[in-house]
């Protein structure tokens, strides 16, 4: 007699170890998995809710300064080290992983205006109100030794900002003029001036490392090439720009933070119109820094908030604020794209997550897969009203909320007025001016 026996290969259903996941044979026949859209929609909704619930961006606060923090700098080679300069001339070096201050230096008399790390991370530079540029060793001095700068350059005027070249031993300062310095020399190798006598910020282009840009007090942004003897071009805007930051992944784009509550992203090849106007702040924007991936940037404002903007979006995707955080003066995005550091008036440096609901630490592959799936679902259903409503909801303090509403009303009124004027005047006599065009006064060659 022939007996037929069902036989299965145990490899198909037996786990190798007990730690493995049970193998589940699956049938992907769509008829047995109906309602895929509605099921995914529900999942997406849940994912958005969870994302908002887990959105706890605040990580830590570093206190120790005795005055408002005026400038921040990242260590070029180490993620966990951050330098900060305060309004009383004190510079502190922080260890982020331990959340403690490693070293304190009384660097200047008066404000520390600017601070930057050398590209190799071995030393850092500070400029202050005492008209000096100082170079310091990153390593603390030996026991019993005084904190002494490696180099001190005494200038003629106050320096207001400093930035170091990406790969070479040169740095740029700004004050009455924009000066390019060689580290080995005590006088600038080049100094640019173009009808302005006070600059607030100078930044090297991290990609095209010979290019620089600076913000001046006459509402202008000036571009330089280190190799040329004269500046390249100047844009004059309606209000003054405070700082600017180059996109680290796009050589020709930079973003400047302006006094008119907005940020402007420019393409340096077409300066007459900004690429994007980023609006959302309700007070002057004081600092801006790009994420190292070049996809987003963070801005600090006088309105006591930090906002994160996608680089090509007109509005922010995130707003961070706490009760105790006052005017945020400086902000930095960490080099691993995970954290944001903000220094504010009330003497604290705050560490935030760049992605508010991100889980810190190592993730198991399954966790990762689940998070990716959730992210994908959120992206897929982001236009659906319920999902959008939940994903976009943010809490704002009352006064900020009011200010925002007020601003919106003002803007609407202005728009209405312009519309009316256009309506009651000869066709074509009142041209339509787009929001982008409004803010640039002129481009000077």
């Amino acid at each position, binding site marked *: 007699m022939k007996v037929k026996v069902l036989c299965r290969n145990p490899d198909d259903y037996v786990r190798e170890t007990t730690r493995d996941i049970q193998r589940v044979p699956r049938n992907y026949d769509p008829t047995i998995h109906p309602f895929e859209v509605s099921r995914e929609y529900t999942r997406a909704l849940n994912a958005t809710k969870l994302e*908002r619930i887990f959105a706890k961006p605040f990580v830590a606060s570093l206190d120790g300064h005795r005055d408002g923090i005026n400038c921040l700098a990242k260590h070029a080679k180490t993620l966990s080290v951050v330098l900060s300069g305060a309004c009383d001339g004190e510079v502190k070096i922080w260890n982020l992983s331990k959340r403690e201050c490693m070293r304190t230096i009384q660097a200047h008399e008066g404000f520390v205006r600017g601070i930057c790390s050398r590209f190799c991370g071995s030393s850092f530079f500070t400029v202050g109100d005492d008209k000096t540029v100082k170079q310091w060793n990153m390593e603390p001095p030996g026991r019993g030794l005084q904190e002494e700068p490696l180099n001190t350059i005494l200038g003629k005027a106050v320096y207001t900002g400093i930035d170091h070249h990406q790969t070479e031993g040169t740095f740029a300062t700004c004050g009455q003029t924009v000066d390019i310095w060689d580290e080995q020399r005590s006088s600038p190798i080049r100094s640019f001036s173009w009808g302005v006598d006070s600059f607030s910020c100078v930044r090297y282009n991290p990609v095209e490392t010979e290019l620089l840009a600076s913000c001046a007090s006459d509402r202008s942004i000036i571009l330089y090439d280190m190799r040329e003897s004269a500046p390249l071009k100047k844009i004059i805007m309606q209000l003054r720009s405070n700082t600017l930051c180059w996109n680290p992944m796009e050589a020709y784009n930079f973003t400047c933070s302006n006094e008119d509550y907005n940020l402007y992203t420019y393409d340096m090849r077409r300066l007459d119109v900004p690429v994007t106007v980023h609006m959302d702040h309700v007070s002057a924007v004081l600092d801006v820094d790009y994420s190292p991936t070049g996809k987003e940037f963070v801005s600090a404002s006088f309105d006591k908030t930090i906002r994160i903007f996608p680089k090509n979006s007109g509005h922010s995707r995130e707003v961070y604020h706490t009760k105790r955080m006052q005017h945020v003066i400086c902000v930095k995005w960490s080099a691993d794209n995970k954290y944001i550091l903000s220094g504010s008036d009330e003497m604290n440096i705050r560490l935030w997550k760049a992605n508010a609901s991100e889980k810190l630490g190592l993730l198991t592959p399954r966790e990762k897969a689940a998070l990716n799936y959730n992210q994908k679902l959120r992206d897929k259903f982001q236009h659906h009203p319920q999902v959008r409503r939940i994903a976009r909801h943010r809490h704002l303090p009352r006064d900020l909320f009011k200010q925002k509403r007020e601003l919106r009303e003002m803007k609407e009124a202005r728009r209405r007025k312009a519309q009316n004027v256009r309506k009651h005047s000869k066709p074509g006599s009142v041209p339509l001016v787009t929001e982008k065009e409004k803010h640039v006064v002129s481009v000077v060659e």
Partner: protein
Amino acid sequence: MAREERRRNEERNRKGVKAVPATMAGGGNNEEELSPDDEHIISASEEEDGSDDESKHAKLLEAISSLGKRKRMKRTERSEASVQVSEFSVNADGTGEKVNLSDLLGTMDKTPGAPNKTKQQLKNLQNRKETLELPLSKQQTEKIQREVAYDKSSKEVSRWETVITQNQKAEQLVFPLRQDPTGPKRMEQVVAGWKAKTPLEKEIFSLLHSNNQPIHDPLLTPAEEASIKAMSLEEAKIRQAEFRKARVLQSYYEAKARRERKIKSKKYHKLQKKAKVKAFLKQFDEMMKTDPAGALEELKKMELSRMQERMSLKHQNSGKWAKSKAIMAKYDDAARKAMQEQLEMNKQLTQKLVVPSDDDDDEERNVEEADALPDFVNDPEPILDSVNPWMRGKLTQEHSEPEVTAVATETAVETKDEGQNGQREDEEEEENEEEKLLREFERKRKLRQDEDDDLVPVPQEEKQVIPVDVAEAEEVAGENVIQISDDEDKEEEEEEVVVSEFNSLFNRLMKSSSVPPVPEQTGAEEAELLDEGLVRVRTMDDLEALQQDVVMDTTQPAPASATPAPSMETTSEPPKKKKKKKGIDPNEVLTKEAKVIKMPLAPTVVEEEEEEVHAEQTAIIKEAFAGDDVISDFLKDKRKQEKAGQAEVVDLTLPGWGEWGGVGLKPSKRKRRKFRLKAPAPPLRKDQNLPDVIISEKRNSSVANHQVSQLPFPFQNSTQFESCVRFPVGQTWNTQTTFRKLTAPKVVTKMGAIIEPMSKEDLPPVKESSGAGSGATIVLGEKVEEETKKARRRNPLQKKKKKSRQ
């Protein structure tokens, strides 16, 4: 200012004084003021060789003379060496002096070394009356400099454009951009950073140095290094194996050829030749089938050779060999045969070709005549579409025949040494195989080369792929949602009715989606905004409450925009294509039996059982609803709905206005007509032609809250958006790999790694023609259209396919 100065210069010229053009715009003013002192200064300079006293005296005089005059600008003296010299504070002792060109060049005539040409030029210059043009002002020169520099730098910056656009379009970016290649490092790389520290090591090193051992110098040449970099280990192994095999084969062939060349037997060579001819014919036949164009080429070649033969006297039996054979022919059978063959060949070659004509009888004749020639000579030119069998020549079908004829002459010879021949054929087969191998290698190598220096652009499929998928999904969905089975009637009309009914169910969706609302700028802007409010969300309940808010929000403004806003369906019903609808008498349709709706969730039940069950079920239902007149109820319902939807006539006539009113009096007809307002007819009902369906066109607010009311920004039309939504990404519906691919995050960062900004090494190498470059994810050195790149990146399957093809 400049104009003023020029005028002054002209004046001076009129006086006969040649002026050296001033370089500074501001110089003129100074000069003007100082002009009274000119004489003094000149005198002072004339007596330059005089003592200090004299100069002091001159100064004193100057001071005295200046006392009485108006206050003059003070000239500063340059007393110490300093880096920066103001243009205003230069002590110009010789300011007033006019230096004539003739003064400077007076010695020119005397110097013998000066060439005549320059002298002539100088003379011309002296004779010229007009002054030189002023150089541009400082501002202007600076402006020009700036412009030039700006153009240069912006051009420089533009080099990054390709990389940046690539990164923007990339599905996934992995940061940091430049990651060290994993895998073992070569000894030199490891050793490079290491130095001898301990005394023992130092000693060993010194010994090595004394013996001139290579320590640091690379063992590989740069070319070798590059080749190592270019391919992976396995690939290299495979290639090496191929090379080895090819080399072996080559040597084998060479040896064989040498051996064959040495064979003296004429017979052997004759056979060889014949075999070659045969092989050629075979190949030619093959070619006709596969590559008609190539065959035609071959044919032309053959024609040419034939013509050459005809022109020459090769087979005329007039050669040396033929003469000898002719003598031998009397006695030798074989020789006679050979002569015969020759003659036959001659006949074949010298035969005149007949042009094929269209007529039938001609054709027959042709067939006879053309027997000697292979048939394909008469074939029409190969036609491009080889698919169509009718377009091919008829004669090509009889390939076997020419072979036979060609071979026929040989048969006698062949039969003699069959055994040998058979062996040879075997050999030939082997050879063929080897050749095939070789060709294969060649092809592979070529392919690889192609890939190396130019990744073969893969046609961009991505865009087409999606719609296909969608269509499939649509079909599947359409089948799965409801299956309407009709047991009795299988007539076409009936089917169409079913289809049209089915269609019209989705018609509404279709129509609504076919008019996509234009994505407004303001809408897009608004979509970006965060909803910032005073509510702090902490728990799930809060989020639920948020949702409730949405419901409230959306319901309130809804009535205002309810009618015009075409809502986009987010549920899975796919819009189906419109088909021609037929007007059907409702009564006729309604007499039919109720249709059975088969739900998709019963695939396991066996068919027969189902039918039985089905019959039973219908019986039960009939019994249960024996008394109900469902159909008439339904019709009533529908009529009511239709009536409710119709526009009502509003009568606004007021009796007594403009005429007499009272009991029994009615307003006039004219007036009534005038004041009866008819509302415009409502749009046609969707279920107008569907007798057994009521389609409610009221907006369902509970569903509307979950629907997208406006077409989101990046999408062009609603079908795009719907297809995007319809395609599930979850593990429930996709295999593991697809799932992973679908849910791959856009940006991947490595934990604890510093992401350096882009550097010049990421820039593609500058080429004369193209500047395409490497992105973050892929490193391609060549110019491949971005679209194809994108496509490839999206479907790595394609890559795999390509690899496997190799």
